């Protein structure tokens, strides 16, 4: 078992640096995280009749479908070294701490109900001899790290270091999503909010019986039509768009946008999040009860983060922010971990 593998392939340390432009940027990587969903915008209202919808203000305290659990994940890491494969390809080594946490709302407090943290090393293993990778993986394991094999890009793209780096980053992010899925799976049919899209976590819950809602801060795809964008930009804090249906490979969801914060109209896109719920649950269990969407929207609005010191407060929920903080506190400082890794691998 050998951690000398890295040195044997001439590994060099990499300092923390801003990602560089792609050597061969053809835009192909941009859609990697998207699910190629197809939107039906005439789900709640005819597409041409979209208007901003006011959210119900009824008391939500006794609502049985009120989400009481919050799932968040975190991937803190960077490329700590690079080595060269026998063919000359640059192979980044990404060292990360990944984790997932569940906070449960109990007696006006957010209590940690579950967490899982791992130290992982992402590497494109196909570039190297199998026996040396096997030995490296065994040695890493002995020191508390898991090796995450990243998928090798096509040969013609392997000379682009940024492409390779992004591939290893995607691998650890992907594994973090799996930890989130594991956390979610343990909750059964408890009403839950997940930070992010539901489709990548579709294996973790029964879409027919689980009242789970995904909160998406980053818009990666354009689902809206021109009328939809007009409504989107004119949403007032606490208003939502009509719901639309997104059909994806693993899960069909009902989705809509809610504005949490308006920044007094300074920025048109400020403070808007997208929510999604499983269509199967919404149709089968709730018989398309639109007040469910209103109540969820209202709840999310009430949960909005009001900590102005937090950079993403405008699109964050307080429980998710707390989850991120609690999870971060379980991580070893990145520089300390990198130093430990350099020591172990004699880099």
């Amino acid at each position, binding site marked *: 078992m050998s951690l000398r593998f890295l040195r044997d392939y001439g590994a060099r340390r990499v300092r923390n640096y801003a990602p560089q432009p792609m050597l061969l940027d053809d835009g192909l990587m941009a859609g990697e995280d998207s699910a190629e969903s197809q939107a039906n915008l005439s789900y709640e209202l005819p597409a041409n009749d979209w208007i901003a919808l006011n959210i119900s203000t009824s008391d939500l305290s006794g609502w049985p479908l009120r989400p009481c659990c919050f799932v968040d994940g975190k991937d803190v890491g960077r490329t700590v070294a690079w080595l060269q494969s026998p063919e000359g390809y640059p192979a980044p080594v990404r060292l990360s701490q990944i984790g997932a946490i569940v906070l449960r709302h109990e007696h006006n407090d957010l209590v940690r109900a579950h967490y899982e943290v791992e130290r992982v090393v992402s590497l494109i293993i*196909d570039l190297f001899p*199998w*026996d040396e990778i096997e*030995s490296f*993986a065994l040695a890493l394991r002995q020191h508390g790290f898991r090796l995450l094999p990243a998928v090798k890009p096509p040969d013609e793209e392997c000379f682009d270091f940024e492409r390779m780096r992004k591939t290893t980053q995607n691998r650890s992010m992907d594994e973090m999503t*799996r930890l989130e899925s*594991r956390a979610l*799976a343990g909750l059964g049919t408890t009403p839950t909010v997940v930070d992010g899209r539901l489709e990548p976590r579709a*294996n973790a819950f029964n879409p027919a019986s689980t009242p789970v809602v995904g909160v998406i801060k980053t818009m990666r795809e354009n689902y809206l039509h021109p009328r939809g964008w007009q409504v989107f930009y004119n949403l007032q804090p606490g208003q939502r768009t009509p719901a639309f249906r997104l059909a994806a490979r693993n899960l069909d969801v009902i989705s809509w946008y809610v504005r949490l914060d308006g920044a007094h109209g300074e920025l048109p896109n400020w403070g808007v999040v997208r929510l999604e719920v499983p269509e199967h649950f919404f149709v089968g269990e709730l018989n398309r009860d639109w007040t469910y969407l209103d109540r969820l929207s209202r709840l999310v609005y009430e949960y909005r983060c009001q900590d102005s010191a937090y950079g993403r407060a405008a699109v964050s929920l307080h429980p998710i922010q707390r989850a991120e903080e609690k999870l971060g506190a379980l991580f070893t400082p990145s520089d300390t971990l990198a130093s430990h890794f350099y020591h172990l691998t004699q880099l």
Partner: protein
Amino acid sequence: MNTVFFASVIADLYSEAGAPLPTVDRPLVPLSDLMGAYDLTCTELTGLTSATAIQELLRRGGIVEPPERLSHERLAGFIYTAAHIGAIFVERADYLVRRRFSVAHELGHYLLHFRPLLQAGESDEPSVYEAMEAIPFSSSEAEPDQMPVGRMTFTRPAQSTASQKSFRDMEREANQFAGELLMPKEIVQGLVEHHARAAHGEDLIWRIATDMLVSRSAMRWRLRFLGLL
């Protein structure tokens, strides 16, 4: 051959190699260490064919005369054995997890089919015993539940002994051996028990396959075989 027999061959392998047994906490099988138990070499070649593999053996002086019926068909794995030599080759450009499975598959042929023949022949004319097996190369992961099916070649008189068992049976046994070796029943069961509460279906397969450095298709096949999927 049944799982009890495979288990006994694998136990001997660990014993010969002096390698530590995997555990649920350290589930990766040290295949490279196990290879060291016998006089087997393992080489990765780009553009592997039976012809390039034999050419490599000739270059090394491992053999003096090339066997007949060599092919230029691209291969994922290849083994050549004779009385004095055992050499495994895998395609360098193949996915690493498949390279490992190919090695385990060829090791299975060596331990289950070739070595017994070679040992049986040692007393009379060892130099005429020669056996090869080749696994065709597949460039995609499109055949998720198909295990490799290779082609075997025996020289006479080994041919007559080998023909008592069909080549198809020997391929199946080599695959089962590779599965038992790389994904031991107790370890896979332990990992499933450990992860099953929180991971299902593809997530579970992905997790265990990652930790055991095997392909998802191989793990799916193994879980089905063990009745765990």
